[in-house]
């Protein structure tokens, strides 16, 4: 009994030591951040919903709605996107990120890599090139898949008033 107790105590002490020497997550080097390219939208499906026109990648589905923020775009993976109810100030948002983690950078769109404890996630912020109802229509989407973030930018850039 005494030996079992000592063993438990010793194990606790050794595991505590291991926790104290736990590696903090190492920041990525700038060169290891992939630079992304926005895909061509040739062959993508065109949709006309709630006074706007836009394209979606193959196998994506669009849930129609009367109000723009209620429209849902479901990508082939099941990832769901929605239009932002208000315009996004991309330059202002971008200035709050470390440039090491920006994977795509343009005046109308940005894709940034977030390192989370559970793995990397990309965030795509993209707005239409032309105003819709007075201001650009934007999408703010998160994904574990970098390709989906580039698709978000392509979708947003394709938005046109009908």
């Amino acid at each position, binding site marked *: 009994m005494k*030996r079992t107790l*000592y*063993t438990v105590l*010793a*194990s606790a002490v*050794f*595991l505590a*030591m*291991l*926790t*104290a*020497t*736990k*590696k*903090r997550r*190492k920041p990525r080097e700038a060169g290891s951040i992939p630079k992304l390219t926005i895909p061509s939208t040739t062959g993508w499906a065109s949709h006309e919903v709630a006074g706007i026109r836009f394209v979606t990648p193959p196998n994506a589905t669009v849930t129609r709605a009367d109000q723009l923020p209620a429209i849902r775009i479901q990508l082939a993976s099941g990832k769901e996107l929605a239009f932002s109810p208000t315009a996004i100030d991309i330059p202002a948002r971008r200035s709050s990120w470390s440039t090491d983690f920006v994977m795509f950078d343009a005046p109308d769109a940005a894709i940034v890599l977030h390192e989370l404890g559970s793995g990397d996630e990309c965030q795509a912020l993209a707005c239409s090139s032309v105003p819709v109802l007075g201001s650009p229509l934007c999408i703010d989407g998160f994904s574990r898949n970098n390709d989906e973030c580039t698709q978000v930018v392509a979708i947003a850039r394709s938005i046109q008033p009908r």
Partner: protein
Amino acid sequence: MKHAVVALIAGVIVYLTTRDGLVLHALGSAGLDAPDVIRFHLPDALWQYAFCMTVYAIWRDLRTLALPLALGLVAEATIGTFDPADVVALVAGALGASLQIGIARRSAALRSESSA
């Protein structure tokens, strides 16, 4: 037990002098340059060696070394990064401890034979 203490002190010295960015470095770091095998893997091996020697000191049974090795591997998979080189270091630490115990037992047996 003496071996365990020496191994632990050596491991802590390696951590404090050659590494940074660890929770332990709230205490400070010397930031010395050293090969990766010393910086990253030697402390793991020393930790495992010390853990095995401590458990052996309690039980005096070589079979009980499986417990610290198993705990080390589980901790490496959960708290650590499960880097294959770290796993090799942990197994090496446990093997080093069993080798050390084997040598100590043999020399003790030889001593008792010669004194008899």
